[in-house]
């Protein structure tokens, strides 16, 4: 009796074996890029032999070539080594600002969800008011009070994005507060503080992890924007935003001075975000797919 195919759904049959996970393009490329970023932070001299501060009057605004991979700026400084040496500062600001925003968001959001009525109402209003302002405006406000400089840039970007994180955490906590396992923990006789610290907060921060990895990228961008406006890191320092701002002046005669650093910023943000998403999947399912 010959079987007749009734319905064959799904893709045509091919060997189902998946490529090893470390070979997949979407994981490998960002991973390598992030490692390169790590090297740029810890040992920038390994990547570039030029001194980022060395002025060379004979090599002003050179286009990219074998020696100067990214060309040179208006003072003849090697752009590639300036980008490499600026990595540390930009990433410190990006990660530091995200940490401030996350921790602030967790504390503020959890309190806003669990505190007694008047306090939670008050905190919620504060969060709402902060959300009404663009983050950049808040960062500018902080800079206006504290003054310029790398540390203040970090603080400004971090403080400005607390409200968004707080809002997310608050809604998570409110949802988890009503969950079966929190009620069950009450029935077991666990102390309210244990319930908050062991059950509510660890589960509430789950979605924060993915938001934070995207946040690192956007904090790098915000810090770059502040430097671009001349309010972040002061120009002679090599920082990505400062490099972009500087390059803008020569966009018509030497476009590489801003385009190439901008590409590096974009690639970093994309790589960190992609890796962050993989990390999120890994944490959620225990599988790296």
């Amino acid at each position: 009796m010959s079987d007749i195919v009734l319905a064959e759904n799904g893709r045509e049959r091919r060997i189902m074996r998946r490529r090893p996970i470390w070979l997949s393009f979407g994981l490998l490329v960002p991973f390598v890029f992030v490692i390169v970023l790590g090297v740029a932070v810890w040992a920038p001299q390994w990547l570039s032999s030029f001194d980022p501060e060395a002025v060379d009057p004979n090599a002003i605004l050179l286009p990219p070539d074998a020696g100067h991979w990214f060309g040179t700026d208006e003072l003849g400084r090697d752009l590639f080594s300036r980008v490499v040496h600026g990595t540390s500062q930009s990433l410190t600001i990006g990660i530091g600002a995200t940490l401030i925003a996350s921790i602030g968001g967790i504390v503020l959001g959890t309190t806003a969800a669990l505190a007694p009525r008047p306090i939670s109402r008050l905190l919620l209003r504060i969060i709402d008011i902060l959300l009404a302002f663009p983050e950049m405006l808040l960062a500018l406000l902080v800079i206006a009070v504290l003054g310029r400089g790398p540390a203040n840039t970090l603080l400004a970007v971090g403080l400005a994005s607390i409200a968004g994180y707080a809002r997310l955490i608050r809604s998570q906590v409110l949802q988890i507060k009503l969950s079966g396992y929190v009620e069950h923990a009450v029935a077991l006789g666990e102390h309210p503080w244990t319930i908050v610290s062991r059950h509510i907060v660890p589960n509430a921060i789950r979605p924060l992890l993915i938001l934070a990895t995207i946040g690192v990228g956007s904090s790098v961008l915000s810090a770059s924007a502040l430097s671009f406006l001349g309010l972040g890191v002061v120009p002679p320092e090599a920082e990505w935003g400062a490099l972009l701002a500087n390059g803008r002046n020569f966009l018509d005669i030497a476009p590489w001075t801003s385009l190439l650093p901008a590409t590096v910023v974009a690639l970093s943000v994309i790589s960190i975000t992609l890796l962050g998403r993989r990390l999120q999947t890994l944490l959620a399912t225990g599988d790296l797919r």
Partner: protein
Amino acid sequence: MNIQTSLQNFQTADSAPSPLLAVEGLNVAFQTSQGHVDAVRDLSLQIAPGEILALVGESGSGKSVTARALVGLTGPRSTAKASKIELIAHDGRPLDLLGLSEKAWRHVRGREIGFILQDALVSLDPLRTIGREIAEPILAHRLVPRSLVSQHVAQLLERVGVPEPESRMEQYAHQLSGGLRQRALIASALGGQPRLLIADEPTTALDVSVQKRVLAIFRELAAAGHGILLITHDLAVAAQLADRVAVMQRGRVVETGPARLLLSDPRHDYTRQLLAAVPTTAKRGRRLSAPDVPLPPRQPVRSGERLLEIGNVSMSFRRADGSLLRAVSNVSLHIDRGETLGVVGESGSGKTTLGKIALALQHPDAGEVLFEGRPWSALSERLRRPLRAGMQTISQDPLSSFNPRFTVERIIEQPLLLYGGLGRSQRREKIVELMNLVGLPADLLARRPTALSGGQRQRVSIAQALAATPKLLVCDEPVSALDVTTQAQVLDLLVDLQARFGLSMIFISHDLGVIQHISHRIVVMKHGAIVESGSVKEVFERPQHAYTRELIASVPRFGDT
């Protein structure tokens, strides 16, 4: 045995009129990340006009996949093959369902085969009125002129027993009760006037009284000449409704036969095992998972030693529209040491709220709860917290009561950290001991509950409850989400543990069969109030309330040997 089964097959096929649907050698396989899975293997069945064939089996046995294969909806990454699937079409000619194109399938679905899904709320479009939903197949197959459609829809609704069809047609799915929704879904399957109906667990989400009415509708449809394939895990439903029953296990039909004969005198071991696992009145006091192994002698109830007293408790909730819902009204009951009190009632009867009041997770508006003769509901949470170890709970869905980040080990460790005062290695020992006690291997300790089966999860939650060495267990529908054989094992385990530790239990369920099996006394709840109470014997022999009688009628009686 096999010869006999095929003989029965042969006889039924011969005596019945020419079949409406004939399936031979159906195989369905899925490609999953774990590899190739055979969901259905070499399945053959026939349904005559006016016949109801029940395909029964536990979850994962392949019964739903079979139903979906018959309408060409097995989904992505699946392969369905058969040597014959033939349906007698409306024009009386046989229609070959093999190798149909998607376009050709659309003429079959709804027109030749009506498909009724399990959960009416998710199967009905929330944005369309019931009337438009039912009109869909009629319009799609152009059966009735447009002007007559609404009249036709009203007739269909009337046929499935929906009162005031004209006004119901204008309502949305969420505005209807579960029973009406299910009937609207049946009406929508009837719209294309199919001769064959496939119903996948059509009564599973319904309360006993509603289920009875829906089953009656199926009976009428069969009498009107429809052939019906009923997919169910519930042997009681199959017994009440089906003419013939086919039992599926791991993708194969292991036994087929006339319902009455098969369910009273099963041939195959698996069918016997399934039937033995169903709690019926005759099996009270016997082990369900292994009928030959006796249950341990139950410890006597120390009546008069009140463990929990609930006195005149009432509680209301505010509904979304602002009106008050009396969830529990003026309920009084007590549980003695070593006693199991069964609380039975349909959904919305207030039994879960009562359980939460007993656990002091809800505070009653009026009345008081005493635990071990001392105030319980009146205490402040701070004073109650150290006493909570004495009263533990097991819920219907243990997955939702476990912290999703915790492993099995940490879940069971929770109460030990609170009350045990044990060191790390002692705790570990105790956890392994508890796992043993509930019949789980210790190598599951590192797993997360999502990687466990339903029965294993329920055992973990029992182990966790026992870790607190409680005096009272509040079990809220602890076996409702389990297959009948798993349910039997968990019920046996609870009885064993009760005999061993002298626990008291409040056992909440909608299933009187389960309740009568495990309880000493029964309380029947309806609309938040107790309508009947007494020992199992009293309630079964002299039911006072009409609702109790209805519940008793729903307890399956087959397999009482």
